[in-house]
């Protein structure tokens, strides 16, 4: 099945995508308002927590970390989608990524921004978060380079800035299209500035390709390292349930997994809302779904390895913890996570579901729920059931403050994404044109209309 029709006129591509930038309908505003309200909930909770102290989140000794770290990892994980689709598949010449990588990259950027907020919210003294930066200070104190949390800070900053750069650079030709097709208004001025005078000359295209490829090559190891570093927060500790060498690849696999699942969700939504059926075609959806399934199996394997290595290992404490996860107070969540993460993806194995939009929508959301639970199940049980039985605590759960901020983060992400979709083209017009061109070359039909890009 072909990923895209070969006879779409280039002007039509422009037209269809630019249509998504029109003034939004009422439903958009309603949903945006809801998203902002969710953010409001989170802000309220954070103000309360900021003023009174982290105790309102129902943290304690030993539950030192809770939903903030779990959700932080979740959002970092979500951010791997863009890198995967943009960079990795670009290097693999998988053309089917072309219509969908733009919004995936946007998802990456906004996920990272959301994750960054959680770092702040999680700290006891947020107002001194800058201590973690190597800024010149009178006491000549450097941050602690041995600490995985500091590596996190650096890695995430680098990743965020690189992702923004990658997103932006990749958008330049599209921004030029927008500039050329807009009437005089704030948008035209906006795109004029952002497109940096792109004319589409041969020289510019050559430079562009090299730049894009370079950033892609840079970004891939960065993505792997970022989530490996986040995994090191846990793997470098000797706490039971954390001290597992397979954590870095496990986390990266989980990240790709949740990223892909999120792509499916957003794919379905954008396809419907902006009527991108021609571009976000069912064959592409199918490929995405199969990719997700493959990653799900990789994740399942690594997850299983984690249990197996604990099981045949010599650390009785880690074994006790594993049994506790399966039978203790976290058991419902742990079993749900395993079910959602390993069993539910099998729906995607069957051809008849691989393009079934309603089923995929539900499945993709369930997969992400499973991945969120996975992060929580990594963080919380170790705290509640560690090395020292006297300090075990099986009865404290996160309070409404923690849930409120987690809830609000989804609103924040949604808000950013919605604004993005209305300001920037969420399908990469020039890449789609390339795709159509290649298809037409393959089928030897000359359906593509030459001329103005």
């Amino acid at each position: 099945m072909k990923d895209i029709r070969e006879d779409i006129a280039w002007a039509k591509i422009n037209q269809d995508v630019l249509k998504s930038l029109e003034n939004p309908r009422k439903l958009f505003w309603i949903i945006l308002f809801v998203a902002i309200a969710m953010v409001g909930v989170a802000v309220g909770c954070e103000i309360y927590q900021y003023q009174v102290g982290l105790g309102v989140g129902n943290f304690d000794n030993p539950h030192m970390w809770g939903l903030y770290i779990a959700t932080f990892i979740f959002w970092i994980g979500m951010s791997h989608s863009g890198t995967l689709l943009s960079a990795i598949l670009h290097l693999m010449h998988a053309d089917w990524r072309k219509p969908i990588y733009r919004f995936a990259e946007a998802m990456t950027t906004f996920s990272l921004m959301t994750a960054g907020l959680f770092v702040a919210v999680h700290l006891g003294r947020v107002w001194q978060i800058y201590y973690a930066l190597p800024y010149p200070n009178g006491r000549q104190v450097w941050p602690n380079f041995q600490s995985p949390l500091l590596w996190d800070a650096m890695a995430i900053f680098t990743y965020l800035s690189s992702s923004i750069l990658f997103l932006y650079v990749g958008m330049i030709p599209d921004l030029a299209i927008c500039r050329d097709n807009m009437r005089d208004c704030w948008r035209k001025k906006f795109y004029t500035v952002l497109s940096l005078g792109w004319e589409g000359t041969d020289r510019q295209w050559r430079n562009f390709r090299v730049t894009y490829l370079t950033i892609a090559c840079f970004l891939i190891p960065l993505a792997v390292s970022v989530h490996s570093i986040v995994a090191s927060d846990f793997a470098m500790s000797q706490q039971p349930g954390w001290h597992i060498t397979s954590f870095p690849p496990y986390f990266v696999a989980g990240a790709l997994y949740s990223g892909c699942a999120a792509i499916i969700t957003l794919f379905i939504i954008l396809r419907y809302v902006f009527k991108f059926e021609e571009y976000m075609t069912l064959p592409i959806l199918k490929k995405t779904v199969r990719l997700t399934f493959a990653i799900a199996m990789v994740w399942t394997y690594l997850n299983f390895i984690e249990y197996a290595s604990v099981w045949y290992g010599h650390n009785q404490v880690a074994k006790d913890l594993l049994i506790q996860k399966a039978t203790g107070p976290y058991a419902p969540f742990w079993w749900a996570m395993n079910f959602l993460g390993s069993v539910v993806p099998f729906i995607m194995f069957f051809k008849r579901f691989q393009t079934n939009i309603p089923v995929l929508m539900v499945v993709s959301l369930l997969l992400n729920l499973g991945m969120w639970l996975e992060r929580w199940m990594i963080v919380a049980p170790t705290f509640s059931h560690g090395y020292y039985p006297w300090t075990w605590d099986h009865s404290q759960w996160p309070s409404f403050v923690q849930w409120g901020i987690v809830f609000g983060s989804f609103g924040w992400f949604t808000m950013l994404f919605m604004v993005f979709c209305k300001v920037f083209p969420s399908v990469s017009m020039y890449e789609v044109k390339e795709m159509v061109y290649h298809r037409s070359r393959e089928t030897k039909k000359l359906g593509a209309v030459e001329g103005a890009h």
Partner: protein
Amino acid sequence: MSVSTLLENWSDYRHLHPVDDVPHNPYKWAMSIDLDACSGCNACSVACYAENNLPVVGREKFAHGQAMHWMRIERYWDEDISAPGGRDFPDQGAQFLPMMCQQCEAAPCETVCPVGATNHTPDGINSQIYNRCIGSRYCSANCPYKVRYFNWYDYPTTDNVWPAEMNQQLNPDVTVRGKGVMEKCTFCIQRVTVAKNNAKTQGRLVRDGDVQTACQQACPTSAISFGNLVDPESKVYKQWKAQHVELDKEAQTKDKEEGGSDLRGYRILEELRPYPSVMYLERVRETAI
């Protein structure tokens, strides 16, 4: 802010597990606690509250597990008590264990603080620098003993923690912590500092007995010994030596002997290699009755 400062100070404040005979010089503060003498009375714990400005968190917060006792007394029953097939009554008593920061030489908490708020002092104490702490709580996440306590609320401004007149009891030698910082036992570093200053004024080193931690001073059975592990005259040195417990081992030589050792000294969770500075003397199970 120079790289050379960073490199120079690196080995000073980042102390890996001790490899020399003498881990620190001239002071390495250590403790030994005799569990056979400890009666579980909690005097040490209350003395610590008094000395170190520990907040009383009250009933609600204690219920949520947010207590602040730097020194906690744990009470253990024998494993078979009330278990199926086991004894109905604890007819050999209970066991009490005072647990506080073990001031590990290779502390798991020190490496993971993102801002370097917890380090090792030259005299062997795990330091906690309140004004540097941003409250990431990674140190506590990494602590196997879970002896680090976080200020979940702003206790100085919380009602009924230090109401009028009670705030006059606060020890001015010890910081009163606000919200968002981690704290833990410091081996009464404020007392150690005073002792060192006094000794310096007199042109000598701190002698055994010059400084007592609050817990040691209160303990009615004198179960706690505190002193300088590298001073051959100190009680702590003699005790560690008599018990054949060495600071820089993850498994003591004596434990590898056939049939186990006939000495009482041991360290808790030693196999995780934090190299704790607190040695415990096993409680004796009387065979005469």
